[in-house]
């Protein structure tokens, strides 16, 4: 089970869906959901000084409306500027190969396609999580 998850998504309803799905699938005990990339940046700036409360895994929406950075830019910042070594990836309804290539370049380890039936994808992700944690798994798209 993943210790803690941070979800960055502007859609509040998806926070509930994700939280319930994670709970039902026993994916994580702790889940924090925020709706802006600016908030995420502030949190990671804080965790750079004190890692207490830092999540083990971060799910980022591709288009975060009302934020200064989109999901890929946020991943790039977390991966290369804050260097917290968290498992990080995109969760989005988009399935654009160009965006997926950009995300991978920015440091994303996975891309989960957001749809009505998210549970099977999360279940697959749960199985692969240890591989992402040890950085032994390549970038993967969960369709």
């Amino acid at each position: 089970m993943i210790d803690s998850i941070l979800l960055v998504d502007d859609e509040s309803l998806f926070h509930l869906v994700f939280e319930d799905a994670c709970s039902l699938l026993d994916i994580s005990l702790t889940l924090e959901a925020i709706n802006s990339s600016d908030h995420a940046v502030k949190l990671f700036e804080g965790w750079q000084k004190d890692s207490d409360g830092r999540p083990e895994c971060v799910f980022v929406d591709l288009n975060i409306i009302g934020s200064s950075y989109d999901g890929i830019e946020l991943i790039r910042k977390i991966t290369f500027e804050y260097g917290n070594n968290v498992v990080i990836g995109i969760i989005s309804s988009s399935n654009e190969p160009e965006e997926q290539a950009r995300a991978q370049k920015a440091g994303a380890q996975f891309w989960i396609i957001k749809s009505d039936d998210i549970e099977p994808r999360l279940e697959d992700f749960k199985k692969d999580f240890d591989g992402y944690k040890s950085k032994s798994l390549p970038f993967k798209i969960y369709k």
Partner: protein
Amino acid sequence: MKVDKSIRDWLLDVQKAKRITLEGNILKLLEADEDDEAFSKYIKDALEKDKEARRRRLDVTKQVQEQNKNLLASQEENERMNEELKAALNIAEEEKIKAEAAKAEAVIAKDAALNDLDIAQKRSQFELIGTIVRVALYVIIGVGFTTTAMYIVAIVTKSDTQIIGSTWSNMFGILLTNAFSIVGTIMGVKYASEKKE
């Protein structure tokens, strides 16, 4: 994580008295002693209840999400149709303006055509009058010449000139009067025709 006996008993009492159990991920951390069947059942029931509640909430949330998605799609469709309607209205407005301009041009062309027709009719009328006047003038001049010729012949042949003389005199007076009248008419017709053109 194991809880002490007082907390365990309190949790079981609350469940029994008020049918309230713990909820959320804390349940996943709780453990019961191997021989404590009552607390094991409590944890199992509470977990089931929590999962059931989450499953229901997940279903409802997904339904709301789906409805929101449909609403957004309808809104986008409405906006698209509104845009199309606006574009169609603009085109119709432009066509209306063009049609009005064409109508105005047609009215001007019609007025010009009617005017030309009127002028042509008047011109043909004046030409007819001119022809009549010209023919009348030729007749008058012809009669004048004929009468004068007869009078000259009568004088030369020394015939009786009393009747022809008075006739010629009267005729010439009448012809002169009429000739001036006709010349005046011709001048008038000519003047009127030139002014219309």
